[in-house]
């Protein structure tokens, strides 16, 4: 029974789960997700951004999954007013950067905006719509099981695509055989009737 007790203890303490190896980027995203509201979490996973309300002014900010120029200040109609950029001085993973920005805007908004650099638009190659930002999001943010399954299926389909000619020829052969069989029966039927 001591063995069973140890296994149950391990399961209860989450020891098996903690052995999962995760990259620093994934750890950063996990920490971020753990400190978002359910609504922000859904928005982030779906749209690569989440909204934060400034703690002092009540202004709505949109934080994008991107290292630079990733904070949009929105007006009452949800349109962009400014793009702000500030980040921790140390080199951090992106999840930590986003969490630091969220905490800063909620807890010491004025100071954060004072040190931030302002832009009228996103950078062409560094903004949230850049290829780098999209790839980083795909790599670090864990998708739900059905999205992962769909992705696997898509990649499997791409892998067998070079042999698509074989499937096409097979399909044509099957259709031809069925058609010839049908034609034969029709001809035989017409012979019988005559």
């Amino acid at each position, binding site marked *: *029974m001591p063995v*069973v*007790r140890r296994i*149950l203890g391990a399961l*209860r303490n989450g020891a098996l789960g903690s052995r999962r190896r*995760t*990259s*620093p*980027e*994934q*750890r*950063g995203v*996990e*920490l971020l997700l753990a*400190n*978002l*509201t*359910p609504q*922000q*979490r859904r928005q982030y996973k779906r749209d690569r951004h989440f909204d934060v309300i400034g*703690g002092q002014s009540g202004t709505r900010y949109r934080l994008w999954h991107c290292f*630079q*120029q990733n904070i949009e200040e929105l007006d009452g109609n949800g349109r962009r007013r400014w793009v702000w*950029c*500030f*980040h*921790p*001085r*140390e*080199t*951090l*993973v992106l*999840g*930590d950067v986003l*969490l*630091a920005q969220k*905490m*800063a805007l*909620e*807890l*010491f908004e004025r100071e*954060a905006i004072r*040190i*931030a*650099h302002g832009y009228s638009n996103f950078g062409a190659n560094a903004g949230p719509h850049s290829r780098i930002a999209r790839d980083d999001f795909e790599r670090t943010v864990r998708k739900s099981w059905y999205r992962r399954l769909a992705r696997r299926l898509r990649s499997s389909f791409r892998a067998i695509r070079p042999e698509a000619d074989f499937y096409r020829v097979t399909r044509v052969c099957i259709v031809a055989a069925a058609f010839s069989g049908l034609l034969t029966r029709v001809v035989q039927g017409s012979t019988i009737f005559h």
Partner: protein
Amino acid sequence: MSFMQSPQTFEKNRDRAASTKRVHIVMDRFGDSRHEFDVTDAQAVALAEERFRQLTGAGFRAAALSGDGSPGKMLGKFDKEVEQTLFIPHLQGG
């Protein structure tokens, strides 16, 4: 079957254990470093206070995490009752 706990007992024990456990989360390039300590252990609390002093002295800001995503609060001094303290490095414009 003495090792089997009823769900109520298990929850009670877990809550009791959780209520005395605190964690300092320091953002770094490896994602984060977590330093756990128990409030009933005076030595661990002293170490945690020293860590808090050193990090805030080095420019980190300490914030109490709410745990549900709602805004936490800034911490000017060490508070051993805060369950999760996040240390944010100094910010700069980009």
